[in-house]
């Protein structure tokens, strides 16, 4: 009895651990999309955050500073996407693909440059047993975003921006700077998600460690109907599938198929849900 309860608790923790990076990225992407900028670059921003956190943690010996720098670098690439999308009106999909290449390539480059070893970094100081508070923080972020979006003037303006930026302009506000801020904050959240992977859950960076979580987050946003709680809930479902895959490893189901499960689930849900949910009207539309 105690044993199975313990296993259940361990599985619950594993689910939360696997949900957290997706949750951060999904919340970040959701915020950008609510303001009207679709962020295909989440995956790259996560990688950038994860890599930077490792570098700074290695340099300073303080993983907390690593997390902080991961947030900043994620925010920087969010800003790059936002600036490209607002000042230059570039295609947001194209810019996102470019940012993914720059971030993942740059991290791989950086591994060789800074640690002189390709593939993975050496072990650096990680958060160790304290990583759980980043899980709590993810939930707090979801609550804060819910509160921010639906209760504050800023949230009202962001929502209006994603629906009809001209209405925002007519109200005497600047839709471009609102969008830029939202997508920068979104990038920072994705960077935080990446930092959680590298110095929270583990204590190193390796190539491909984000493993498509940024893309899964894009699906989570849709299933979460572009709401903070919905996106966070969808992230937990994906985390659950990933935890399941870990727990069932070595079982009768081949691990490759288990690995494909979250993507398969996303694909099926995408087919089932589309049409019943509605994206912000000006999502991805340049202003």
């Amino acid at each position: 009895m105690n044993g199975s309860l313990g296993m259940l608790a361990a599985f619950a923790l594993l689910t939360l651990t696997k949900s957290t990076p997706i949750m951060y990225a999904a919340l970040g992407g959701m915020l950008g999309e609510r303001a009207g900028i679709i962020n295909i670059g989440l995956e790259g921003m996560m990688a950038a955050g994860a890599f930077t956190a490792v570098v700074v943690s290695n340099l300073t010996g303080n993983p907390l500073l690593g997390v902080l720098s991961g947030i900043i670098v994620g925010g920087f690439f969010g800003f790059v996407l936002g600036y490209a999308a607002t000042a230059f009106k570039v295609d947001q999909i194209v810019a996102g693909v470019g940012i993914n290449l720059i971030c993942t390539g740059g991290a791989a480059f950086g591994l060789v440059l800074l640690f002189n070893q390709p593939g993975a970094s050496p072990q650096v100081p990680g958060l160790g047993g304290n990583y759980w508070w980043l899980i709590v923080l993810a939930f707090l972020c979801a609550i804060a975003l819910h509160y921010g979006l639906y209760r504050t003037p800023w949230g009202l303006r962001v929502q209006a921006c994603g629906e009809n930026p001209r209405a925002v302009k007519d109200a005497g506000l600047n839709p471009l700077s609102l969008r830029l801020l939202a997508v920068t904050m979104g990038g920072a959240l994705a960077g935080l998600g990446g930092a959680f992977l590298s110095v929270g859950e583990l204590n190193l960076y390796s190539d491909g460690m984000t493993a498509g979580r940024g893309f899964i987050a894009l699906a989570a946003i849709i299933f979460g109907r572009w709401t903070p709680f919905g996106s966070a809930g969808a992230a937990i479902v994906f985390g659950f599938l990933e935890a399941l895959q870990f727990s069932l490893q070595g079982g009768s189901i081949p691990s490759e198929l288990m690995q494909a499960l979250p993507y398969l689930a996303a694909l099926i849900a995408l087919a089932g849900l589309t049409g019943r949910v509605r994206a912000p009207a000006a999502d991805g539309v340049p202003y």
Partner: protein
Amino acid sequence: MKRARRLISGPIGAIVLAIVLAGIAMLIAGVSPIDGFSALFFGALGGKSQIAETLVQTTALLFPALGICLAFRAGLFNIGAEGQLIVGGLAAGGIGEHLHAPAFISIVVLLIAGCIGGGLWGAIAGAMKARFGANEIISTLMLNFIAIYLANYLVSGALRGGGASGAETATLPTNAWLPVLIPDTRLTIAILIAIAAAIALRFIFQRTVFGYELRASGDAPQAARRNGVNMARMTILAMMVSGAIAGLGGATIVTGILHRFNTALSPGYGYTAIAVALVADLDPLWICVAAFGFGILEAGGLAMQASAQVPKDAIHVIEGLIILVLAARRYVTSASEREATQ
């Protein structure tokens, strides 16, 4: 002529700017840009075997880029060339072992298998969009991952070759290998097939009813729908043909380079090909030129890694910069065009 001018003000200018940015990045990283770029240049074009290897990379990029071009022209953001490439290669590698036929027939059958594999993989996303309205960017991304894991599963299980050392299919019979174009290199007739495909694609766009309707559905979907284009059918068809071209590319890598299927098939050609297609402004013939340019980067990157200690991944940074700068340049040029007409 007009197009050439536009390319200089757009893509070529973007590439120059990206190279400058990459040079600055090298400086920051403590590598002399002259060393870095000369290693890249000589590594890609320094001799017969280097040029052949560059053309191998060109070919590998060309097929998925042409597939992406077709989908993008139809207004479909097919980010799934990577998965379509893999499934195409998997289809060819999977049946190759069991094929005992004369050389020509073997090769044709394997290439067709690649088309079918990639085409089906693309059609899934197309059908999901046509039937449910599912966003093809997300679905093709998901299908990329599913393709990789599916391939991993199959080559470590059902399709694993008897004599294979790792997770890969058995070696193809030699008469199913693509003929080599330059002896002692990996360059095969695949490049000729790719160029033929580019010419065919341009002809399809310009001269056929299908190409006309495809461009209409991309350029003005509302107008196309109201003028006799069956959008659901076009969506599935375009995604299928797009996937088939990428899948053909996967099959040429299997029959021409690896002579078996394993997941080393693509180091991300399907993603780089997006940049190739966009740099060339979605024009099939310019895509050949752009693929050669990116082929230089890919092949030279490996050489640069060996001689100048600049890791190959730095190339992805350059590619990403080209995409970003290009996307921004396009806005700048269209803005100046607007001002000129006012």
